[in-house]
């Protein structure tokens, strides 16, 4: 398990020639009856889709990297590979240190449980110990501004409260690599400010951040580097402003009919 400590500016996240192939089965037999009927009709029809195609990427320590691209370009798949949710069809992934493995904030929340119980459960799901979670509980509650609601089942929370709690849990536990998937669109302006302040702290502490968004303004404002994905491959990689420009041009043929006037 323990890799030699990396002190220099070497890569924290290394993705080497990774391909993730999905077999898209047309009407996959979900029940035995369907299986038998497919069997009689000889075989199942399917096609293979490479959601990520022979992709290599190195993310150095302390970098805030934006992953941008159209829907279906492979952003989420790539994040899931890095977080260890998918085992890639081929290629190699290496992550130095802990990665907050929640792809979606609050994915591990259970609606019947209270905020406090969810903090613990979510932390344990991310691989932290009970002791550590209890230590951080109060600062999570404070950051999320949940107040007295903390002992109420989270189904009674507003969606903003849930997101705040989820963000607080994900960032309070101090992962080496933080994955943010389109979350900063939620919460009011004040809380968003707080989130970015915290992300800033993360960067100052030398943590690596992978950020997926469609909001180009935040990419240009906060990120060190942007990677544009298209059909599972890297189309552009570099300065956020330049890559965002390429992305806009990529969209424009589709957008053109909408902005004729």
């Amino acid at each position, binding site marked *: 398990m323990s890799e030699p400590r990396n002190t220099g500016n070497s890569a924290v996240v290394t993705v080497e020639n990774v391909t993730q192939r999905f077999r898209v089965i047309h009407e996959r037999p979900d029940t035995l009856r369907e299986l038998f009927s497919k069997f009689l009709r000889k075989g199942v029809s399917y096609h293979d889709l490479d959601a990520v195609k022979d992709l290599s990427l190195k993310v150095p320590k302390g970098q805030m990297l934006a992953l941008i691209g159209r829907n279906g370009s492979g952003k989420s798949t790539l994040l899931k590979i890095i977080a260890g949710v998918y085992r890639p069809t081929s290629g190699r992934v290496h992550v130095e240190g802990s990665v907050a493995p929640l792809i979606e904030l609050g*994915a591990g929340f259970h609606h019947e*449980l209270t905020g406090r119980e969810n903090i613990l459960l979510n932390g344990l799901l991310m*691989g932290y110990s009970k002791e550590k979670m209890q230590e951080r509980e109060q600062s999570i509650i404070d950051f999320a501004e949940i107040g007295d609601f903390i002992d109420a089942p989270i189904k009674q929370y507003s969606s903003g409260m849930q997101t705040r709690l989820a963000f607080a849990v994900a960032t309070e536990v101090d992962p080496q690599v933080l994955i943010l998937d389109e979350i900063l669109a939620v919460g009011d302006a004040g809380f968003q400010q707080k989130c970015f302040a915290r992300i800033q702290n993360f960067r100052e502490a030398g943590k690596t951040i992978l950020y997926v968004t469609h909001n180009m303004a935040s990419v240009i404002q906060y990120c060190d580097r942007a990677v544009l994905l298209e059909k599972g491959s890297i189309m552009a990689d570099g300065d956020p402003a330049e890559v965002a420009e390429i992305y806009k041009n990529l969209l424009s043929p589709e957008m053109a009919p909408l902005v004729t006037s």
Partner: protein
Amino acid sequence: MKELVVETYRYRELIWALALKELKVRYKRSVLGFMWALLNPALTMLVLTLVFSTIMRFAIPHYAIFLLSVLLPWTFFSQSLSYAVESIVGNGELIKKVSVPKLVFPVAAVVSNIINLLLSFIPLALLVIAMRHPFYLTWLYLPIPMLALIIFTLGMTFFFATANVYYRDVAHIVQVLLSAWFYVTPIIYALDFIPPNRQWIFKLNPIIYVINGFRLSVYYGQLPKWQSVAASFACAFIALFIGFGIFRKYQDHFVFYV
């Protein structure tokens, strides 16, 4: 197999939290809450005692204890299996978003039922006292058949939870299987009721050996023969090896099918 032990230990806190969550959610919004874990077997006992002491009379003294000594472990087995068969599919949303060892879900489902099993022995002990049935020292032996039963249950659970990921019919088949299995296992009757020349068929049933240990120690105050104990553990470990082996082989693909 080593993976099972290591990961279970490593994620013990998560497994425990998931098991508690399961219980909490199960008893949520009920006035008596956790008390149901005790009341359920107690009320079942009451019904069975009434039925079998007034309507269907067997020539077995203290039939309720005779029955419950094996019905409680059977209930553990069948409930674990019915819950856990859905444990991977039911946690699909989580599996798709969090990198977590998949085995925590079936293990947690079984653990939550272990809590129920242990609690259900409290009303049984009370019944033993109430019916003036001797309280045998062999109760102390119970952890041994419990261990074998838990291992056996885990093995079956891993197998069926895996199968259910690929074919959702499995969850339904398990229900049918369990009710058939209930009747071919000497639970409401004793193996002695079966003509000796047919008993060998019943002895093919892998759960019979462990069940036997429960009844002997609670009802008869005897310890099982060592051959029977060995058979119960052999069945348990074979089930676990096969079940977990299959689970392990497929676990990386679960995320694409849940």
